[in-house]
């Protein structure tokens, strides 16, 4: 069965600092990986996805993520965080070849301080 681990429940960064949110997955085949963001009281918005090709994926809002098969990781990064980035971030894994039972991690709550 597929699974996703987000080891950091909360992260606090200063505005303008760089950010890296960790995500490790477990899946027997080539995974289909996502990062979503959820602002307070909102639904989920897709930041980026990976299913093949270049392992460094660019997303919206200046985010990027790197797929590392050897480490079973798909960490999310941003070079300079803005106060509006404060939200909860979810990593998710699905089966390549179809949208089948996408599994979400437990989320990382990001706080941005001035």
């Amino acid at each position: 069965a597929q699974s996703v681990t987000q080891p950091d429940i909360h992260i606090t960064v200063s505005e303008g600092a760089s950010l890296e949110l960790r995500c490790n997955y477990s899946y027997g085949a080539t995974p289909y990986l996502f990062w979503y963001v959820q602002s307070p009281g909102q639904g989920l918005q897709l930041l980026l996805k990976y299913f093949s090709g270049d392992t460094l994926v660019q997303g919206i809002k200046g985010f990027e993520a790197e797929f590392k098969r050897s480490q079973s990781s798909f960490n999310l990064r941003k070079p300079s965080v803005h106060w509006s980035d404060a939200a909860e971030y979810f990593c998710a894994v699905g089966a390549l070849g179809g949208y089948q039972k996408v599994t979400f991690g437990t989320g990382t709550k990001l706080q941005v301080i001035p």
Partner: protein
Amino acid sequence: SAVISQKPSRDICQRGTSLTIQCQVDSQVTMMFWYRQQPGQSLTLIATANQGSEATYESGFVIDKFPISRPNLTFSTLTVSNMSPEDSSIYLCSAGTGERLEAFFGQGTRLTVV
């Protein structure tokens, strides 16, 4: 991308009653799904809404408690039946199309059962 509208956005309901949540997509989609997000938790897939046939439920979720309809390719409903306080959650509809798809999410319905 698909735009998903959910109604109602929030509701407070008495225990023992039922609530039907509507999900409307602005374009035809292959797949529609319903998720539950309990307070402080990640997303758990309830079921896949199949057009013209019975929904496919995940382990721990049953049709009697969460009946789902999907009469066409752009609309689905989820009913939370005989509610108890434990059903207080955010319920999210998602939809997607194509083999390598990303899921688009509605804003969610925040349900409080008292």
